[in-house]
């Protein structure tokens, strides 16, 4: 077993721990922090199922962003939806046997990879072209997009330019999950791709990627508009 295998195995274990514990910690903090008052942005649903519907539209269709800016919405939505498909495609490296629905979705993952590039490029372009967005962008905002672009680009390059031994890659990840290490191929492109993924996992809980769990805890979106009917006493409840 090579040093590279040990190095990457260790990095993935550490990154996975940071990701899971870090996000769990944040979720616990969000859940435990009181929401003392009713502050839904109205008009808001007056029932719990209504709120579930609002949250569904917000997280699946990005409803508020659609109202705000069609360009940001189209690039943002393409990127996120494409990333979902790509993630589903990547499940095949972690499943044996591969679930049927994953196998069905997988071929679309290749096109989704290209769509990710398009969406991310559009989002990055706005950071240069729109003066307002340029003003609010910190180095980390650019770097996050560069990171995701690089992950998508290296992934696509392995598909089209320099193939790697994906059977061995799968064996490596199955081995990781079973705590029974298998060798990782050492193609530079694969190592770059995986290294960037490790970075993404590790920065998730300490970066703006917290918007993913955060949206579900946003009181303006997850509260029922029923303040007159029910007396809201907001400690540890929404």
């Amino acid at each position, binding site marked *: 077993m090579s040093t590279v295998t040990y190095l990457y195995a260790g990095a993935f274990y550490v990154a996975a721990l940071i990701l899971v514990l870090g996000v769990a910690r*944040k979720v616990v*903090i*969000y859940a435990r*922090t*009181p*929401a*003392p*008052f*009713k*502050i839904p*942005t*109205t*008009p*808001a*649903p*007056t029932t719990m199922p*209504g709120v579930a519907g609002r949250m569904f539209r917000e997280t699946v269709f*990005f409803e*508020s*962003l659609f*109202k*705000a*800016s069609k360009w*940001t919405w189209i690039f*943002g939505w393409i990127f996120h939806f494409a990333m979902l498909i790509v993630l589903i495609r990547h499940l095949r490296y972690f499943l044996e046997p591969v679930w049927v629905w994953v196998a069905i979705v997988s071929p679309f993952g290749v096109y989704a990879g290209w769509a990710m590039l398009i969406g991310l490029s559009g989002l990055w372009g*706005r950071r240069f072209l*729109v*003066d*307002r*967005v340029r*003003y*609010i*962008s*910190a*180095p*980390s*905002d650019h*770097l996050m997009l560069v990171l995701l672009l690089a992950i998508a680009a290296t992934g696509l390059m392995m598909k089209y330019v320099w193939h790697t031994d994906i059977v061995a890659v799968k064996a490596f990840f199955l081995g990781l999950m079973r705590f029974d290490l298998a060798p990782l191929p050492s193609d530079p492109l694969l190592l770059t791709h995986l290294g960037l993924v490790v970075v993404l996992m590790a*920065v998730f809980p*300490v*970066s*703006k990627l*917290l*918007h993913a769990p*955060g*949206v579900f*805890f*946003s*009181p*303006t*979106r997850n509260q029922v*508009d029923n*303040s*007159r009917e*029910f*007396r*809201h*006493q*907001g400690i540890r409840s*929404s």
Partner: protein
Amino acid sequence: MKAEFTIPVVTNIPVTPSVVEGTMAHSRPFVAKSDHQSALGFPEELVEDWHDRALAKMKELLGKYRSLQVFMDSCVKCGACTDKCHYFLGTSDPKNMPVARQDLMRKVYRRYFTFAGKYFPWLVGAVDLTREVLEDWYSYYHQCSECRRCSVYCPYGIDTAEITMAGREILASVGIGQKYSNEIIGKVFKIGNNLGLPQPAMADTLLDLEEEIKEDTDVDVRLPLDDADAEVLLVTPSADFFAEPHVDGLIGYAKVFHQAGIPWTLSSHASEAANFGLFIGNDESMQKVAMRIRVAALELGVKRIIVGECGHAWRVAYSYWNTLIGPFDFLDPDYPAPQHICEATYDLVQAGALKFDREQNDDKVVTFHDSCNVARGSRMGNMPGGQFIIPRALIRASCNHFVDMREDSIQEGTYCCGGGGGLLTDDLTELRVKGALPRVQALHEVIEQYQVTHMAAICAICKSQFTKVLPFYSLGMDMIISVHQLVGDALVLGSKQ
């Protein structure tokens, strides 16, 4: 109207300006004097250890409000909000973009409370809390009217109002409160209303109004004060007692109650619906101000509480009262508690209890300005969006000529008048005039297209703000009117048919 600043040009179509840094860096309201501060339990002046106390306060607030904690973490700088704030649209100052306003606090949050900001501040734009940062906070957290328009468009529902409130609370807690808001809250504590109007003056004013109605209509319409036989306690902004055009709204409420035969009263103990505790983000003040109303309702033994035309007061009443001063189990369960005057009038209209002569308002072509706190922080009626439907239904019931302004400038997308959130003070005139631009622009469109003559509103701040700023745009100050003025003018008094 002459001004010491450049009045924005009203264009035919809405325009998003290019960023011009620092245009409003000089704008800051008067700082609260020591007695304004101490009345609310804040330090009298900037404390020596302001740095540590500000951070301790921020930590406390992060643990107290889920909104603040989640909003500090969630922003991805997508830019959706950047062209949504009326103050940015009117001033071009990038720090008036909601995300940039939030970032004034977020960059300090990151520096002291996050891993990335502690170890890689340059990467994530984290900064130390310095006097300059504190000055920026004071300036720009008083260039937000807490109208929540940004929160409609944010994909994570980030509400800059919550951050502005936290910012102001931190500032006040280290000794730099805002004079206008804190002085007013002090007056409510001491005398019972924002204007410091004592009971005898109120009683006189109400008598004068009764005489005025008698002269105009030959009908004895009463405006009772502290009447223990009343069923309804009306709590309304104190501007309704004397300011124009507010007072015509109060006359309208009185006529509605008279015609419907509902015994009602005002209270000298709770002669104010406004609650500036919301604006400064101070729950204790908000609760104390609100509690007067519960006390008055119990003392008078009323069965219903109705709130007059006041935007933020309705938000506080609708969204906060039940939590702060509830439960309202001593009131008649057949009516919502509290109820908005527009809801009460609307129900009477629906029940056929009121008759209107719309021709009385035929000299007007009316449009409606949705007040921000009503639109995005409350509701009327039993369906979402009732707060848009009900006031318009009242205007249509009392006027023949009504048109709406451009779709993205009304209802949930309504622009703040520019004077809300504790900014309705003369030391912020430039900000108020510039912040009114998006509303004035949309109004300009309907004036051109439909010859609109009047804009009705249901908020005392909106009414005062437009009375002041419309002349800067060469529009008449009397364009702005109360919804219940229209109702009162068209309402047929006397025997029911």
